[in-house]
């Protein structure tokens, strides 16, 4: 009975979404304030009903209601409680419910935090969000309803895939979906701007925090996914260029370009067309990602159970998004206007290069992902495009970008002088080159690509520090005032994020070049060495977990005689599938290296096979990702987005002129 309640709430939310798509827009057309205000109320209503629906599904899992098909397929009586809740988003239908709930969360957030928005803009934004909700809610209700019953109910469920019964599963989908769904908000702002015929600095200032927060969640979602794969899959990989991973990376790349493009639109009024296009593209890539994951068009380990009928639905949504946006753009774009002028060497031109490079990288990954499908569709053969291709193609595109990151903050807006920049940054350049030359040698053989990557990472960090030092200024003012100037959230956020990226680059370069992997055979009491560490198998034991049994190895790791860690890799036999053992690796993490052991199978006699890993600087990848996200959050929290006086000024100014462009508006 309760499950039907959840279904009912879902359908109600769909109805509300339909109304939300229509009424506020009508309000803007007829200039009716009451109609426009309904957007807020409807968004809140959607949130309430979808929360109810999600709560019902969670409850169904908690009480193990196996008469609901989805619960029976993803839970079992012996499944630990936390993973019963996690299983809510462990499959296609439930994860969709999570998705639409998060969409409602963002919707209600927009409704609450937009007091400063002119009411027409808010009405349009909520209406477009309503349309997006209609799409995904209809998809859920009509093709992927999590509340379907099976009659009679099952005695015990099938249980969730053991690979997913892991803390990573608790974090990864919610964070990632928050990011995905956030791109819908940015998209809504862009379409609202087009519909309203105004795209100016004020609009950019409103959109920026939303875009940045969505980007932060995407970053965290991807990073957690990578981290989870690293420690869970047992062989130390953290990125496989799998189509589903690419599906999350593509919108991340364009979202990164977007947050920078928005900065230019806000500060200088330029890049309007780019910003619009990127906003639309990012959301379209999100829908494309949903298509890739849920339609079965491309083979992937991550794909949900697939069904062409669902694929057609999502394809329809993608078509509506793209063609609809193009239509709105064609209709309204000439009113958007051009921005301020700038010289060929200026921060704007560097930002434009940034936009172009990120878009090109995105296009390259896009082509690589869809190329096998295209060839197959035209009957030209079946090929695979995997890491060897993407690694070869992506790195060279990223390297110039890394250089630009260091350059950007030192170059002035509108017009700058190359020799000025050189004078400011020459020491950073010198030290970076030296770092690039020397640092690899501390690890082993010198490789040109590694040296280049390390040089660029040092370059980013050093130029950031230089910029902070420059803003700190000379000693005339007291330190507290100077510090306050530096500690502006948007300024520090930018540099923190860039430095986070530099750390990630270091980690990637080091791990790819200097990691060590060895397959060994060990009996209890035996010691093997790899990469300067000694691994001793103390003993084998059997362990019982909540829903699994395991063979566990006790491995002592030491270096130069001094003990480093005791690792406990396991080979788990889950109750639901004893014939298919699962590997649970064990790792010891420090600032400069990870030591990682996986247990293989039992060999002749008392021996077992092991795989030993030495992964240098791996920790920098995760800390870099956290810094990246933190920097974004900091930047989004800048007071100028929240200042009341700013808002009042904006609303008054926006009521008058068209924006901060040059006096003469040129139609594009």
């Amino acid at each position: 009975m309760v499950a039907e309640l959840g279904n009912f709430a879902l359908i109600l939310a769909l109805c509300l979404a339909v109304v939300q798509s229509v009424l506020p827009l009508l309000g803007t057309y007829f200039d009716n304030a009451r109609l426009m205000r309904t957007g807020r109320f409807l968004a809140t209503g959607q949130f309430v009903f979808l929360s109810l629906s999600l709560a019902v599904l969670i409850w169904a899992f908690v009480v193990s209601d196996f008469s609901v098909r989805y619960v029976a397929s993803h839970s079992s009586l012996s499944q630990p409680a936390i993973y019963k809740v996690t299983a809510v988003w462990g499959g296609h239908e439930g994860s969709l419910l999570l998705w639409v709930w998060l969409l409602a969360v963002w919707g209600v957030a927009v409704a609450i935090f937009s007091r400063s928005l002119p009411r027409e803009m808010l009405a349009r934004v909520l209406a477009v969000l309503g349309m997006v909700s209609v799409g995904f809610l209809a998809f859920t209700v009509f093709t992927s309803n999590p509340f379907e019953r099976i009659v009679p109910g099952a005695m015990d469920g099938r249980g969730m895939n053991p690979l997913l019964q892991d803390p990573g599963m608790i974090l990864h989908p919610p964070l990632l979906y928050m990011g995905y769904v956030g791109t819908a908000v940015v998209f809504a702002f862009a379409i609202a701007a087009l519909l309203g015929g105004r795209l100016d600095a004020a609009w950019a200032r409103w959109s920026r925090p939303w875009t940045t927060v969505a980007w932060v969640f995407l970053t965290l979602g991807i990073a957690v996914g990578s981290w989870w794969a690293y420690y869970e899959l047992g062989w130390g990989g953290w990125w496989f260029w799998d189509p589903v991973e690419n599906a999350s990376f593509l919108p991340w790349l364009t979202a990164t370009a977007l947050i920078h493009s928005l900065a230019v639109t806000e500060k200088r009024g330029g890049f309007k067309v780019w910003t619009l296009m990127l906003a639309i593209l990012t959301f379209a890539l999100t829908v494309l990602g949903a298509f890739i994951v849920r339609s079965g068009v491309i083979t992937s380990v991550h794909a949900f159970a697939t069904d062409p009928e669902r694929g057609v639905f999502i394809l329809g949504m993608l078509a509506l998004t793209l063609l609809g946006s193009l239509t709105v753009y064609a209709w309204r774009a000439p009113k958007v206007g051009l921005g301020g002028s700038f010289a060929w060497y200026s921060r704007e031109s560097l930002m434009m290069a940034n936009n172009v490079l990120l878009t090109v990288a995105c296009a390259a990954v896009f082509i690589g992902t869809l190329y096998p499908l295209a060839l197959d569709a035209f009957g030209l053969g079946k090929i695979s495009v995997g890491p060897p291709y993407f690694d070869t193609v992506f790195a060279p595109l990223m390297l110039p970008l890394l250089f630009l990151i260091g350059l950007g903050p030192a170059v002035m807006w509108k017009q700058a002088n190359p020799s000025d920049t050189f004078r400011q940054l020459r020491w950073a350049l010198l030290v970076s080159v030296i770092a690039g030359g020397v640092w690899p040698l501390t690890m082993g053989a010198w490789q040109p690509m590694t040296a280049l990557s390390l040089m660029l990472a040092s370059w980013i960090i050093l130029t950031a520090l230089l910029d902070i030092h420059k803003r700190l200024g000379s000693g005339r003012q007291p330190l507290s005032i100077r510090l306050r100037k530096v500690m502006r959230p948007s300024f520090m956020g930018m540099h923190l994020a860039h430095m986070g990226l530099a750390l990630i680059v270091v980690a990637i370069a080091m791990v790819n070049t200097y990691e060590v992997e060895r397959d060994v055979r060990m009996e209890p009491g035996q010691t093997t060495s790899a990469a300067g560490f000694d691994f001793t198998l103390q003993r084998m034991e059997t362990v019982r977990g909540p829903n699994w049994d395991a063979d566990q190895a006790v491995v002592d790791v030491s270096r130069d005689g001094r003990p480093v860690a005791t690792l406990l890799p396991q080979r788990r036999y889950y109750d639901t599938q004893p014939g298919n053992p699962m590997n649970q690796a064990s790792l010891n993490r420090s600032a400069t290296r990870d030591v990682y052991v996986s247990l293989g199978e039992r060999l002749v006699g008392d021996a077992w096979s092991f795989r030993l890993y030495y992964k240098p600087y791996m920790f920098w990848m995760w800390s870099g990702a956290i810094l990246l996200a933190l920097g974004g959050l900091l930047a989004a929290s800048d007071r100028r987005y929240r200042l009341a006086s700013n808002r009042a000024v904006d609303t008054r100014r926006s009521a008058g002129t068209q924006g901060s462009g040059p006096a003469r508006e040129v139609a594009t």
Partner: protein
Amino acid sequence: MNLRLLIPLVAVSALLGLLFLGLGMNSRDLPSPLVGQPAPAFQLEALEDPGRMLTEQDFIGEVALVNVWATWCSTCRSEKPLLMELARGGIPIHAFNYRDERDAALRYLNVSDNPYQTIAYDPRGDAGIDWGVYATPETYVLDAEGIIRYKRIGPLSRQLLLDEVLPLVEKLRAEQNRMEQNSTEQARVEGASREQRRVAQS
């Protein structure tokens, strides 16, 4: 229409079209590059008789099917009745017993019927790799010369037999007959001309 809009429109339509086509395709089906190639060589023990060695020549000679099966493969059981029908209908079926245990396989064949003429025992999957096997069951159609003319990945179904396999077998048999007729014709002509020459010389 403005060029700046036309290019994105064309690109978007192309993408949507491609994805729509993709929905209708099965991305897991791998066409075999071995079709049109001679049957790869192998040297394996016969399943029933470990002392007897089989090679690919034992599979070649007439139009035949080669089936790859194992006792742990449940779908292989489902296609067994169809194979029995084919065998009784006069189509020779050879087999690889793939990554299996000899005893289990023999027991399986004793309990139900044995549609196979010759069975090669491939416990390590060596011949499997040579023949491009990657899932069981798989079925190849060989012509009389030993060229692989067709490969089916997955179980046979009645529909598939009627639509593809049986027509192909008929066609290949007709080819074989024609070639044999030609060669007997040729042999007869040569024999006759040799006779003539002999007669002429004497």
